[in-house]
C-alpha cells in the first residue's frame, strides 16, 4: 500500500514539476532505521529536519534489532527489487554483500567523504564506487559501575583476569548484602553476529588474530585464541548468568541498566541511555577500553558502525541521496553524538568541545575507535555470513559447555576450510 501511495505521489510530482526537478516538492522518501535504544527517535528527528528544510516528506521504517535478521530482511527486499525503502541503514560488514543493489554516492557527495575516517570510506567503496556514506562508527567498550568498584576498593580493570576477579568479589559482596539479582558481567552471547563481535574481541585481546587474516588464511585455531575462548567459558555461571547465551545488545543493557550487573560489554550507544534521567544507574557508570588478554595482550574493540546507502530501485535516487548527505553531515553527526553518544565518523568531531563535554570517553578512547579490529568481511566477501555463523556457533558451543575450546576451534578450522574451498 505504501508502495502505491509513493508511486502516486511520484507520478504527481513528475506531472506537476517535471522530471528534471531534482528536489521535487512533496516527494516521499522512506528510510530504514534501526530501533536499538534511542536510534529510531534520533533518526526520525534528523530525517524530519531534512524534510522541513527541503519540503519533502519522509517515512521511517523500523527494522529488527538483530543485525542478522535485518540483513535477511534487506536481502529479501533488495533481491526482489522492492521500491518500499529508498535509504538503507547498513552494517559496516555489508557493503560487499549488498553493494550491487546500491547507487554510487560519489556524484552526490560533493567530496564530503574526505572528512570521514579513511578506513571506513575504503570499506564502503566497492569496485571503485562509493556505495554508502558512514553514519556512525562503533567499537565494543567496557562499561562498569563506578560506584560499586569504588565501594569495594577496585580500579577499572585492564585485563580480563582483573575484570573477572573484581566481578566475582563485588557480586559475592552485593549478594551477601541482599542484592540477589546481582551479576558480574553481561555481554552479547546469543548465537548471532553480536557474538562474533564479542568473541573476536576476546581473541584479539589475547593476540590470537582475526579468525581469517588479511590474506585469507584461516588462523583461528591457535593457542592464544583457545585460551581466550576458554577464559570466556569460565565466566558462564560464575560471573555471568547462563541466560547471557541468549542475550543481544538490548538484553544485556536491560540487566546492566536496571542495576543488576557490575560490568557490561556493549557499544557506545548504551552510554547516553545509562545516563538518561530515568536510568537507575545515572551518574554511576564509567567506560574504559576492553581489557587485555594478559600482560602481553592488547586493548581492542570490534569495529562496528552503520552506513547509509541509496537503493538503486528507488524512485527518487537523487532526493534520497540528498537525505543521506544531510544525515551524515558534520552538524547532524554532532547532534547525534551529543544527544545519544553515537560515534561520529568525522575526525574533527572528536576535538569538538561540546561533543567531548557530553561524552567524555570519546576523547579517552579515540585510539580504540580508530584502531578497532575489523571482522574478516572484506577478505571472505559473500561467504562472510557463513564464516561468521560457523564462528559464533563454535564459540557458543564452548560457552554453553558442550565442547572444550580447543576441540571447538579445531572443528571450526575444518569447517572454515570447507567454506574456503567454495572460494573467497
Amino acid at each position: 500500500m505504501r508502495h502505491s501511495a509513493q508511486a502516486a505521489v511520484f507520478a504527481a510530482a513528475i506531472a506537476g514539476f517535471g522530471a528534471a526537478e531534482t528536489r521535487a516538492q512533496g516527494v516521499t522518501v522512506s528510510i530504514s532505521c534501526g530501533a536499538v535504544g534511542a536510534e529510531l527517535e534520533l533518526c526520525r528527528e534528523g530525517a524530519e529536519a531534512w524534510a522541513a528544510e527541503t519540503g519533502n516528506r519522509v517515512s521511517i521504517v523500523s527494522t529488527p534489532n538483530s543485525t542478522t535478521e535485518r540483513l535477511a530482511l534487506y536481502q529479501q527486499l533488495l533481491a526482489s527489487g522492492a521500491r518500499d525503502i529508498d535509504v538503507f541503514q547498513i552494517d559496516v560488514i555489508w557493503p560487499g554483500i549488498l553493494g550491487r543493489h546500491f547507487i554510487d554516492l560519489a556524484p552526490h557527495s560533493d567530496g564530503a567523504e574526505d572528512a570521514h575516517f579513511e578506513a571506513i570510506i575504503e570499506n564502503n567503496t566497492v569496485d571503485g564506487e562509493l556505495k554508502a556514506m558512514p553514519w556512525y562508527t562503533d567499537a565494543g567498550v567496557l562499561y562498569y559501575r563506578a560506584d560499586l568498584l569504588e565501594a569495594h576498593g577496585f580500579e577499572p580493570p585492564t585485563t580480563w583476569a582483573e575484570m573477572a576477579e573484581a566481578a566475582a568479589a563485588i557480586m559475592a559482596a552485593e549478594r551477601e548484602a541482599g542484592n540477589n539479582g546481582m551479576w558480574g558481567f553481561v555481554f552479547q552471547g546469543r548465537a548471532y553476529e553480536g557474538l562474533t563481535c564479542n568473541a573476536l574481541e576476546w581473541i584479539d585481546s589475547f593476540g590470537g588474530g582475526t579468525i581469517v587474516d588479511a590474506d585469507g588464511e584461516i588462523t583461528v585455531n591457535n593457542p592464544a585464541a583457545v585460551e581466550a575462548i576458554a577464559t570466556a567459558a569460565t565466566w558462564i555461571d560464575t560471573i555471568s548468568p547462563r541466560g547471557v547465551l541468549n542475550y543481544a545488545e538490548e538484553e544485556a543493557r536491560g540487566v546492566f541498566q536496571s542495576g543488576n550487573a557490575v560490568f557490561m560489554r556493549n557499544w557506545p550507544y548504551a552510554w547516553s541511555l545509562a545516563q538518561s534521567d530515568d536510568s537507575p544507574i545515572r551518574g554511576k557508570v564509567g567506560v574504559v577500553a576492553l581489557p587485555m588478554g594478559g600482560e602481553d595482550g592488547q586493548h581492542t574493540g570490534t569495529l562496528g558502525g552503520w552506513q547509509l546507502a541509496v537503493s538503486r530501485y528507488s524512485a527518487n535516487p537523487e532526493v534520497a541521496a540528498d537525505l543521506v548527505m544531510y544525515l551524515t553531515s558534520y552538524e547532524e553527526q554532532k547532534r547525534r553524538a551529543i544527544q545519544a553518544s553515537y560515534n561520529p565518523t568525522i575526525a574533527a568531531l572528536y576535538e569538538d568541545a561540546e561533543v567531548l563535554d557530553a561524552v567524555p570517553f570519546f576523547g579517552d578512547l579515540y585510539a580504540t575507535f580508530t584502531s578497532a579490529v575489523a571482522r574478516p568481511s572484506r577478505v571472505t566477501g559473500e561467504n562472510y555470513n557463513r564464516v561468521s555463523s560457523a564462528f559464533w556457533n563454535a564459540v557458543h558451543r564452548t560457552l554453553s559447555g558442550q565442547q572444550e575450546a580447543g576441540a571447538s576451534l579445531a572443528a571450526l578450522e575444518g569447517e572454515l576450510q570447507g567454506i574456503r574451498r567454495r572460494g573467497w
Partner: protein
Amino acid sequence: MTAETEARLPDLADAQPRAAAGSELSQAKVRSALLFLAPMLVVLALVAGWPLLRTIWFSFTDARLGVFGEANFIGLANFWDPEGFGLLQDANWWRAVQNTLYFTVVSVSLETVFGMIVALALNVRFPGRGWLRAAILIPWAIPTIVSAQMWGWMLHDQFGMLNDLFMRLGLISAPIAWTASADTAMAAVIMVDVWKTTPFMALLILAGLQMLPSDCYEAARVDGIHPVRVFFKVTLPLVYPALMVAVIFRALDALRIFDLIYVLTSNSRDTMTMSVYARQQLVDFQDVGYGSAASTLLFLIIALLTITTIMAGRVKLGGEVR
C-alpha cells in the same frame, strides 16, 4: 508444498467410490466434474506447483540471492559433492533432520495424549460446555509469532514470569535460561508447541468422538464394564480413523516447523529444524541453490513420511474393521 500434500489426503480416503464410475452417464459426470475442478487445479498449479518446480530446478544450480539470472546448472553437486560440501555430507543438515524428527515425534505424541484427554472431558455433557469448547481454542487462534514472542518473554531468565513463579514455589533455586541452554531449549520449544496445538488436536478428536454410535456404550454399561476398559476396547478403536487423520495433519505441520523455533531460539543449532536450516542457507547465506536443495529434501522427506503413514494407517484400519 503442504497445500499439495494436504490436498492428497481426502483423495486417498475417497478412492473407493470413484472406482464405480464406468457407464457413459458417469463418464459425462466425470467430465463436468473436471470442468468445475479446472479453475481450482489451475490456481493450485500456479501457487503450489510452479514454486515447487522452481525450487526443485534451483536445487540443481548454483543460484545466489539477488542474481538469479546468472545461475548455472551444476547437477547433483548441491546434494552430493566429491569434495564433501554436499547437503547429504553436511553434519549440520543431519543435525537439523534429527532435531525435526525428535521435535515431531515428541510434540505430536504429547499433543495426542493431551488432546485425547481434553476431548474426552469436553465430550461429557456439563453446563457451559459450548463456552469451554470455544475458549480452549484460544491458544490455537493466536498467531504463532505473537504467542512465540509472548512465551519468549515469559521464559526470559532475568525478567520472565516462569522463573519467578518456580522460584516462589521453591521448585528451582536459580533462574533457568530456558531458551539459551542447550539442555532446555528443545524442551522449551516443545512445551510451547504443545500448549499451542493441543486444542487443535482436541478439536479434531472431539469431532471423531461425537460421531461414535451410542449402542456400544449402552451395551458396555449393561455388562458393567470398567470405564478404562471401555475406553481401550470401544472408544479408542472406534475413534482411531479420526485420530489418525489428526496425527497425520499435526505431523505434517510439525515437520515443517519454522516460526516458533526461529522466534524462540533463532538460528541456534541445538534446535535448528530443516526449515530453519533451509532459510538460513537461502537468506542468510544467499545460497539459493543449496537452500533449494535443502527445501527439496524437506519436501521429499515429508512426502515420503506422509505416504508411509497413510499406507501403514490404512493397513491397520483394514484389520480393525471386522
